[in-house]
């Protein structure tokens, strides 16, 4: 990625961003641009810090190095009040919806309006109903958040995110844990809101198919670096083995199926002295030991390893 000046059509420019949690580097000197009026997807495996990126853009976290410029404003140089003013122009859809659980759907959507505008209740009512109509939940206005399904909660949260007519919306894993129908409706909503309201959308996701279907541009992040970028077609045709593995969901490839460990056979043979590194797994070793003591044959290890992996997953 070049460090060229902020291009005119980019709403967000991330430059040389580094961020770590503890000793783990989540972003290592990455730079990227988000085009105005487009849907940009940030993709990558779980734990690559995609949500962290959204929080950095929203100014909730501070980078160690680098800058994020949103609509000409350097997010981390702003004073608190300016940051809050910027946030009013950003809608964010959290993975869980993040609806306030003690008030109903209507009040949730009305919340940002009541907080930040001086509109009369009747105008707020009109706006709330319009936003709820846009997500198809006008009839659910009197329900409490705990009465909503996951998909409905996300749609209500979307209505709330667009309540203040923001310039962009950040979507945090909008497709995770949805049944096909609500997934379809959310895909449709993101696309249609983007075109009808002229929004800029950033989708953080690891759902390849849905995201590729609506994104205009995709960044694939891995190990704190940008592993690939381009339009969905370019990404699908990427030469990078890693990107191919991610997009196609192959179980083995550059990312190994097994978490890095010592040699398997060796590990089993020295099981009476479990290495300190995996002391937490002692119970498993005990079983192995007792089996050995009884002179029993080990269960076909590959299968066991696999099934355990699946269970934990």
């Amino acid at each position, binding site marked *: 990625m070049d460090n060229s000046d902020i291009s005119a059509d980019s709403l967000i420019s991330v430059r040389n961003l580094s961020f770590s949690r503890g000793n783990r580097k989540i972003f290592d000197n990455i730079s990227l641009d988000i085009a105005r009026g487009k849907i940009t997807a940030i993709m990558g495996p779980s734990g690559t810090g995609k949500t962290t990126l959204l929080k950095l853009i929203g100014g909730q976290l501070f980078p160690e190095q680098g800058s994020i410029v949103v609509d000409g404003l350097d997010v981390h140089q702003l004073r608190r009040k300016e940051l809050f003013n910027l946030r009013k122009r950003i809608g*964010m859809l959290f993975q869980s919806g*993040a609806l306030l659980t003690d008030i109903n759907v209507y009040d949730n959507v009305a919340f940002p309006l009541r907080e930040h505008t001086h509109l009369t209740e009747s105008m707020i009512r009109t706006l709330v109903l319009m936003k709820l109509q846009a997500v198809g939940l006008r009839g659910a206005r009197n329900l409490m958040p705990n009465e909503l399904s996951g998909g409905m909660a996300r749609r209500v949260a979307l209505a709330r995110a667009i309540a203040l007519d923001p310039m962009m919306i950040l979507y945090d894993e909008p497709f995770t844990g949805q049944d096909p129908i609500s997934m379809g409706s959310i895909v449709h909503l993101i696309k249609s809101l983007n075109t009808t309201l002229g929004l800029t959308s950033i989708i953080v996701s690891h759902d390849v198919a849905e995201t590729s279907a609506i994104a205009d541009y995709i960044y694939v992040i891995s190990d704190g670096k940008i592993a690939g970028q381009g339009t969905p077609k370019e990404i699908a045709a990427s030469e990078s083995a890693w990107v191919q593995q991610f997009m196609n969901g192959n179980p083995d490839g550059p990312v190994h199926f097994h978490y890095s460990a010592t040699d398997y056979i060796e590990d089993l043979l020295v099981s009476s002295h479990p290495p300190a590194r995996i002391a937490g797994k002692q119970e498993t070793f005990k079983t192995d030991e007792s089996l050995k003591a009884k002179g029993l044959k080990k269960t076909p290890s590959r299968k066991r390893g696999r099934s355990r992996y699946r269970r934990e997953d």
Partner: protein
Amino acid sequence: MLHFLQQLGSSTRTSFAKLGRATFFLGHTLTGVVDVAIRPRLLLNQLHSVGVLTFLIITISGLFVGMVLGLQGYNILSDFGSEEALGIMVAASLVRELGPVVTALLFAGRAGSALTAEIGLMKATEQLSGMEMMAVDPVNRIVSPRFFAGFLSMPLLAALFSMVGILGGHMVGVGLLGVDDGSYWSQMQVNLDFYDDIVNGVIKSMVFGFAVTWIALFEGYDAVPTAEGVSRATTRTVVNSAFAILGLDFILTAMMFGDI
């Protein structure tokens, strides 16, 4: 040995770090007085959930504590032939000590743990983050009203506790055991001082209210945002509140009633 020192060092460091975070948090919470002044409804809602819902447990406990004091006091005092001092005994124990302390302990168990769980869950479900992204300060908007509600509720609850307790002591002492009604009240009135006893009791309960709500809200806000983290935070609220209440009670008592 080295290991022990290392552990001691790291736990000291983390507890000081926590204390620092808690202090900043308190400062941030106190700035929310503006929000509360602009939107009194926020405070009102919290007075409901913090005060009204603790009302019942406080009055019932107060009644029983007062009745027990009446019985026990009568048994001891009648040995010395001074049953008429029952009023002052019940009232002084309640107003000076049991009222503020027991109320604060019950408050920590009933309202404090609920506050921690509520804030912790709001954090776990990203409601606090979400609010921040909607350009609403979650500490001022969510935490501050709860803090002020707790701080204001405690003296009222403690006063209620003492009043109900004194009436409970009257029920047992005068109603059942035949202590003279007039001396029950007059002994109290002669010996309890408005400033020394009542006002100090109220000050105590305000300090406890401050400490308990602070601890409860901070533990919730600082909780690890998982089910386990919130449950641990709730436990910590009750335990730390109890320690804080009893420790502060000693300090305050020494300052108010002792000659230290």
